[in-house]
Each structure stands twice: as C-alpha cells, then as structure tokens.
C-alpha cells in the first residue's frame, strides 16, 4: 500500500518536473534568441502600408495606456499620439445602449459645426433622447451605463462630464411606460446582429426598419432644450433631476446665445431667401 503511495508521489513529482523543464526551456529560448530580433523589418517601399490600412490596424488594436509618474502621484491615461493635452480619466463607455452597439460612442459626423457638441451630449443622453421625439406622455429615466439599471433620485447640480448615468426616454404603451431598450428589443437587436451576414438583403432592410421604427425624421434640435425659459424646453429639466442652479446654467444667455450662433453658422446664408453672402462677395 505504502509502495503504491510513494510511487504515485514520484509520478506527481516527475510530472511537475516535466512542466518546469518545458517552461524553463521556453525561457532559455526567449532569453537567448531575443538578441536576433526575428521580426521582419520593412525593407521595400511596397511594404509600407497605406494610411487607411494603418488606421484600420490602429483601430483594431487595444487601447494603449501610459503612466506619468509625477513623484507625488501617478497619472494613468490613454496614450494618444500627437495629442498635446492630457485627458486623464478614461471615458466611461455605455455597455448597455441599443443604438451604440452598431453606431458607436462618437456617432455624429454629418454636421461639421455641431458634431463634436452632439457627441459630447451622447455621454449623458442616450440616442433615443434626441432621436425619438415624444409628443405626449413625456417621461425619462436615468440608467447606469455599466449595468443598464435604472438610477433613481438624480440630483444634478453641476455639469455632467464622463457621467456614469445616461438619460433614456420611456415609450408609452397602453397606459404603461416601457424602456426603449427593453429586454425584448435588446434580444431582437442581438439576434439581428448575429444573423445579419446570413439573411437576404430584403430581410436586412426589414430588420433595420423595425429597429429604427420609432426614430423621428427631425431630431430634437439644440435650441429646443437650450431655450429661453424652462417651460419652452423640450426636456422637463427639473423633473429629470436637474437642480435650479444647473437649470439656470443650461438656459443661461451664454449657452443659449452660443447655440444661436451655431444655428446661424450651420444654416448658410445662401439658403435664406433675400440675403447676400457678403463674405464671398467681399473676397471677389
């Protein structure tokens, strides 16, 4: 009996020995051969990849983090090539929203003047807030970006930057309010994403139509929320948790005034009947 036991221990030791030897052989191999730098250097101009390929490669790579040791604290942030200013904290991404699963976190691109502002708002407003116009029975909730759970008693006194929560409108169906990202819709979108490469083109169009059926043709514009008075604002700011001091800022002259400047900017003069584009005529 004791002979069997000692033989078993021996075998276990032998097995561990083999593992250690294989691993140490690997270490020795790496240590000895690393001076050769086996990676193929680019020698010919045809090896130089195009800008597009480079960008694609960069895009699929994991984010690189870097540390700056200041002696009294360490700043850890994303390594942004050619970016002068430090960004510090990482963006809290939304893992839950239906739309950004396909459209991403920085979806606005068309309107040159305001695209960065719109992307900034998508940090704390879900896409549905602006892209689904609620006429009656307006109701919104805040949800946590990481787990999607509803967050109650929002008390917003200051501006929201890199917010943990996002605002979401609710759909009014037969006397009940339902989230636009309900479990059933989530499930449908997930299924659709899985089968999209296999289904026929007409089915794809059908699916997309179904997913986007609530999307309004004309999204909520900046001045509909940044209005002159609280009553005129599309969003019920106090109901959704904004405190008076913050509402005053949102509806302040500097914000509303700036929104109007942008409005002027992105509706070019030549579209307004009866106006002359003085800037261009001066140049001529």
């Amino acid at each position, binding site marked *: 009996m004791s002979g069997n036991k000692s033989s078993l221990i021996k075998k276990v030791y032998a097995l561990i020995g*083999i593992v250690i030897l294989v691993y140490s052989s690997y270490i020795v191999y790496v240590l000895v051969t690393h001076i050769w730098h086996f990676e193929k250097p680019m020698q010919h101009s045809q090896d130089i990849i195009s800008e597009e390929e480079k960008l694609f490669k960069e895009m699929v790579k994991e984010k690189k983090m870097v540390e700056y040791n200041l*002696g*009294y604290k360490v700043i850890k942030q994303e390594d942004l090539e050619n970016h002068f200013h430090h960004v510090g904290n990482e963006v809290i991404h939304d893992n839950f929203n239906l739309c950004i699963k396909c459209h991403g976190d920085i979806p606005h691109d068309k309107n040159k003047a305001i695209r960065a502002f719109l992307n900034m708002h998508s940090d704390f407003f879900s896409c549905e807030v602006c892209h689904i116009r609620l006429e009656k029975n307006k109701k919104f909730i805040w949800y946590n970006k990481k787990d999607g759970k509803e967050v109650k008693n929002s008390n917003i006194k200051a501006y929201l930057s890199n917010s943990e929560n996002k605002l979401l409108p609710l759909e009014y169906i037969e006397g009940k309010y339902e989230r636009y990202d309900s479990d059933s819709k989530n499930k449908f979108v997930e299924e659709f994403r899985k089968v999209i490469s296999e289904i026929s083109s007409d089915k794809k169009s059908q699916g997309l139509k179904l997913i986007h059926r609530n999307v309004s043709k004309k999204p909520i514009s900046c001045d509909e929320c940044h209005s002159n008075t609280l009553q005129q604002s599309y969003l019920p700011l106090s109901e959704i948790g904004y405190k008076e001091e913050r509402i005053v800022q949102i509806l302040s002259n500097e914000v509303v005034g700036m929104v109007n400047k942008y409005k002027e900017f992105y509706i070019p003069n030549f579209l307004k009947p009866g106006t002359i584009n003085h800037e261009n005529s001066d140049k001529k």
Partner: protein
Amino acid sequence: MHFFFVNMLILFLLSPFISYALDDENCLLCHKYRTLSRIDEKGKSRIYYINDSLFHSSVHGRVKCSECHSGITKIPHEENTKVNCLNECHITEPTEDKRFSHKNVEDAIMNSVHNNKYPLLRNANSDFFPKCTDCHNNPLFKPIQIFKDITDEGQSPKALARCNLCHKDTKFIKYFYNHVSHRLHASKNNKEIVRMCERCHANNEMLSKHKLKNAIATYKDTFHGKAAEFDYKGSPDCIDCHVKENESAHSIRSYKDPNSSIYSKDRWKTCAKTGCHPDAKPAIGGVRMHVVINKDLYPYEYYTALGFTALTLGAYFPLAILLILELIREIFPNIKRRK
C-alpha cells in the same frame, strides 16, 4: 471710501495671477466635457476635451488658450487652426523683459538631426521629420519633494512656509515653486524618454524611410536598457548619450557630425560623464552600443552571437530533453517498445 480703494488696489495687484488662474476666455464652457470629440475626415479620433486640473498642473498652466490657439478668433471656430509652438506668449522672461517663445528650441532643432536641412541625412523629405507634438505632450509639473510631507499638489508645506514669509499670494508661490523645482531635475524619466523616441525609432515604417535600424530594440538588449526597464535610478536613456553635456535635449546630432556627443573620437567623453563612468578611458568609446545582429554590417558580432546561441541552446536543449525522457520513464516505468 478707503476700503473701496484698498480693495481696488489689491485686485489690481493680484489681477495678473487671477486672470491666469481663471478661464477668463470661458473656453471651458464647452471644453470641460470629456466626450467633446469627433472622428475626422481621415478617420482619426479628435478629442477637444481639456482636463482643467491637469492643465493647471502643467508648465503651460498660466498660458491662456488663445495664446497658443491664436488662429481661433470666433465661435464657431475656424477650421484647421493649427498651433504654432513658436508663437510669442504673454509670459515675460523676467531677466530680459521679452515675451516668451520657443524660438530657442527651434534654433537647437535646426542644428540637430531632427530637421530636414541637416546635411548628414539619408532621407530629407520634410514629411518624415517630427513636429513638436510627435515628441511632446503638455509637460506636467514634477515639483521636487524635499521634505517628507507633501500636499496633494506635490509641494512641501515646509518649503512653501519659507516662501510665505515674504510672498503673500499663494497661487503665485505654488506656481513659482512648481516651475523652478520642476526645472531642477529631468522632466521625463527614462521610460518616458524611451517611449517618446520609440514612436519613430522602433517604428518599422519610419525606419525604412530613413534607412535606419531599430535603435530601441538594440538599446533594450544592453545593460543600459535593462537597467532603465527595471527603474534603476541613474540608468542612461537616449538623451543621456545622444546629447552633449549641458546642451538642450533638442540638440541630437548624427554620429558622423564632429559636434555630436557620439562622434567616434569623442564618444568616450560622453561615457566618462561624472554620473556615468567617470574613470573611463578613450577605449570605452569603441564599445558598440546598438549592435544589430547582421552578418554584413557587423560580422564579428554576428558570429559571436551565432556561437553563443548555438552553444547555449545546443547544450541546454539536449540536456532538457534527456531529463524530460527520464521523468517520463519515472511516470511509465514499464513502457516498452513494441517488437
């Protein structure tokens, strides 16, 4: 009435510092948002966010946005308003009463290998040379901590107390303390410098364009590189060897340039710097630091490396295989070859 005049006088005296500390151009109204960003026409992410606290902990913390972004004059902003680092800014150099600019840095760059007019280049295409932001982001203050206790901003309250005795404006004192003490030591540690240089000197495309070898990989093979990797204090980085003592870090020259710190005849002097190998003799300059294992370039090193590799692996692997076979026999003592 007197009270009013006293207040006005205090405000007048403090106004330069107050205006720098505050965002009086109100740029942060929009730029304080972390996700103020877009994807540009080329497909790259453009982030317009300014981290206020980190900006004010940086060497540019007192420079107004418009001093650098001078092309921006209106809202909505003009397109393609690139920053010119040679702009003169509001800060006055106290000994000469001149407005500050990075002109001197440009002069140093013009005498270095990092500009396309340098005579000893293999490729002088101006597109392949670094711009300021290729190497630099906004340097963050690293104030020297002399005493044990330090504030959240990295300053020593004991040292600040000495300043407080004569100078009354706390913001000014902290800025001055940060500025002076930051400049008294290296603003980048070894790893940060290697990280900066490797953006080009370990980038295959760049190496190919300039017909260079990967200097970062060969540096990391050396004791110097290993020491830096393990955060050994005083380990040499790229700047230590490639910049002449007491010259600007921007004055890196080719090894063929007689003014270079690594020019063959004078290289040993760089090795023999006080903090490095003070007793070194001229022979140390003959030690090759960036050895590429290449038969055509360095045949002696190539065959030495080949011999070392063959001997080490040739001795180790057969031994390891024998040991593994013996251990397999321990596990399966009765295993036999079929006849």
